[in-house]
């Protein structure tokens, strides 16, 4: 006969035995905390201001669709931080989020300077991180969706120049590096020099754009004096704006300008240059490298653009939005693979993430899909080359599988 005493004893024993399992179940269901370090202010703020709404929209969507299923439907909770576009502050915020906010992993715009600064902190605290934009990885804990300096930026630019010359009949013999003189610009240029040299292009001088300059007329005069067939390099939006202004003022059309990304492909150029100047310089002898174009012939990309525009009502839908949205999906896949919030398991799961071409979750144009190489950057670093139309729209030229137009002939 079960007395009240034996029942109470049995119940408390069962409760004591079940407690760890209950705690585990609750822990599995507890929100997964993701620290998001964005450059919300400072020189790189444009990346996060465009990218974060798209990232948050996808995370909200993942939560609404049942969270991370392999972790009992755990929801994702974002903890935001601003690094003010400075590397050292990115490292400080990473330390705060990991030790004070107890986040499970980190992500954020994190361009190359932030990536370099945050790497020692990730190594010390052994925490996984996905950068949206870094062009390299200096920590085994850090993965990046950014373009590799060589196989991303330099290879795409050099291949495009070769394609113009060999396949499209452009008379291109000489070239001039024209790049923003900062960390990524210098790195890309180092690789570009080798690739263009190997392809038989002859260098004629160099135009390194001073990133603090208020005017790029001096650089444009240097280009005009050397008159290369093509000026090529990585140019930031601000330097691109000043470069195009100088080109308009000097009325120079003797060279082809190609490169990217933001300095040639950013929609803000039309607003900042004014439509008349933009029309005069952006639609003439200029080809822009970009990771995203609304004109690209990629169904999954077109679908998410429509969703951002019609459902999420996002105001800015450019490559930062697409790249950030892609980061959210990569994180979701990594968490699903890991099935735990253990930091080492999540880190190892990133290496196993694969989003194939044709998958509905592939938002960026990667012909071979998304997969991380041994250097923790994407195996496919390719990007588009586009040309601007007078109505501010773009036509995709390269690679040919995504193209919807032919390159405009060179004009003088």
């Amino acid at each position, binding site marked *: 006969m079960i007395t009240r005493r034996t029942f109470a004893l049995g119940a408390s024993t069962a409760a004591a035995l079940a407690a760890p399992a209950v705690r585990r179940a609750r822990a599995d269901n507890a929100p997964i905390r993701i620290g998001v370090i*964005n450059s919300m*202010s400072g020189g790189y*703020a444009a990346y996060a201001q465009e990218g974060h709404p798209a990232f948050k929209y996808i995370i909200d969507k993942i939560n609404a669709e049942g969270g991370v299923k392999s972790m009992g439907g755990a929801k994702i909770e974002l*903890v935001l*931080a*601003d690094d003010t576009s400075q590397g050292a502050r990115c490292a400080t915020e990473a330390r705060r989020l990991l030790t004070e906010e107890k986040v499970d992993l980190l992500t954020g715009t994190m361009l190359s*300077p932030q990536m370099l600064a945050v790497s020692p902190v990730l190594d010390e*605290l052994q925490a996984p991180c996905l950068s949206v934009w870094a062009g390299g990885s200096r920590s085994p804990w850090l993965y990046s969706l950014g373009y590799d300096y060589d196989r991303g930026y330099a290879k795409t630019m050099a291949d495009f120049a070769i394609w113009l010359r060999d396949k499209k009949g452009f008379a291109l013999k000489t070239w001039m590096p024209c790049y923003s003189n900062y960390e990524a610009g*210098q*790195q890309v240029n180092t690789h570009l020099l080798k690739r263009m040299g190997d392809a038989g292009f002859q260098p004629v001088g160099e135009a390194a754009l001073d990133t603090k300059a208020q005017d790029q007329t001096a650089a444009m005069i240097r280009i005009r004096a050397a008159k290369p067939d093509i000026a090529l390099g990585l140019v930031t939006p601000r330097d691109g704006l000043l470069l195009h202004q100088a080109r308009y003022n000097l009325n120079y059309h003797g060279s082809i300008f190609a490169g990217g990304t933001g300095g040639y492909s950013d929609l803000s150029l039309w607003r900042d240059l004014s439509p008349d100047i933009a029309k005069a310089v952006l639609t003439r002898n200029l080809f822009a490298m970009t990771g995203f174009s609304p004109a690209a012939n990629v169904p999954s990309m077109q679908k998410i653009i429509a969703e951002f525009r019609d459902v999420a009502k996002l105001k800015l839908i450019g490559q930062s939005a697409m790249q950030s949205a892609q980061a959210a999906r990569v994180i979701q896949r990594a968490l699903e693979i890991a099935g735990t919030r253990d930091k080492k398991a999540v880190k190892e799961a990133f290496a196993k993430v694969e989003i194939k071409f044709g998958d509905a979750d592939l938002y960026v144009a990667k012909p071979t899909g998304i997969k991380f190489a041994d250097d923790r950057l994407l195996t496919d670093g390719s990007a588009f080359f586009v040309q601007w139309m007078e109505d501010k729209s773009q036509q995709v030229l390269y690679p040919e599988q995504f193209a919807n137009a032919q390159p405009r002939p060179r004009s003088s």
Partner: protein
Amino acid sequence: MRPEFFAQLRSPVPWIVLAVAAVMPFVLPNYYLHIFTITLVYAALASAWNIVGGIAGQISLAHSLFVGCGAMLSSALLVRYGLNMWLGVIVSAAAAAAIGAMISFIDFRFRLGHLSFALITMAFAEMAEIYVTGTEFFGGASGLFLPKDTGDFFAFQFGGGRGAFWAMLAMTALCLLANLAILNSPLGYYLRSIRDNENAAQAIGVGLLRNKTLAMTISAVLTAIVGAIYARYLAFVDPYLLVSPTLTVEIILFATVGGLGSVIGPALGAFLLAPLGEILRGHFGGSLPGLHYFIYGAIVVAVILVSPAGVWPAIVSRLAKRGRQKA
């Protein structure tokens, strides 16, 4: 040396403060220890700058050049040539001293006014940043990565957060001691006379070149050593942080808010403003970007309005007034 120097050293207060600070690594969590370490970096830099800017009245905007010299040169010598970083620190401190002496000579030779001196030193700082970010030896714009800190003291490694904290604490104490010693020595009198009236000082026989050069050299050497320890702590030497003229502006802001020309003032300014900036950004940066700048700016303006001479002189004056009332 005036007896006041030894009297202040015999006082138990600084030793108690030092002892309390030294146990902080055992008390503070990781993030707050980091904030404390960064604060010590700024306190040391503001104190070192105070020798030139506060005591001698020479508004130098070139101190980022000295920080960069200590951080970038010693790191580059280690990474490129494998030179022991202790030796690298000696080399970079000597280089900073030489550059400081050269700037002082230019100042003396051309009889630069305060504004011209500030502009010339700013030009040096700008040139340094352009040179470092364009030179492969210093890692260009990418900066340099230092080998992992394994705690080998003989390789200028301090064993991570705690060790770096103690190293910076010692360096801050050294900078404060240097200020105290200078203020209580003939050099301190000469520098203050130069600050108050350069022509009158020269007329009574104060050597402008000798004393200005000495002040700048001491300040440059201390700044370079702080830069090297900071670089070792961060493990990544970022030219845009360590050679940026913005760093000098921050140092001057801390020194001014704390109280120029005093021993404690510049360090106090750093202790008030550096953690405030970090904590405000931590709390508001993610959710309300830019608000932390606004609050920080408003607090700085309020402090300057309430005590234009700085926080420390205001505290000293209030304490003295209370003492007089009691008497």
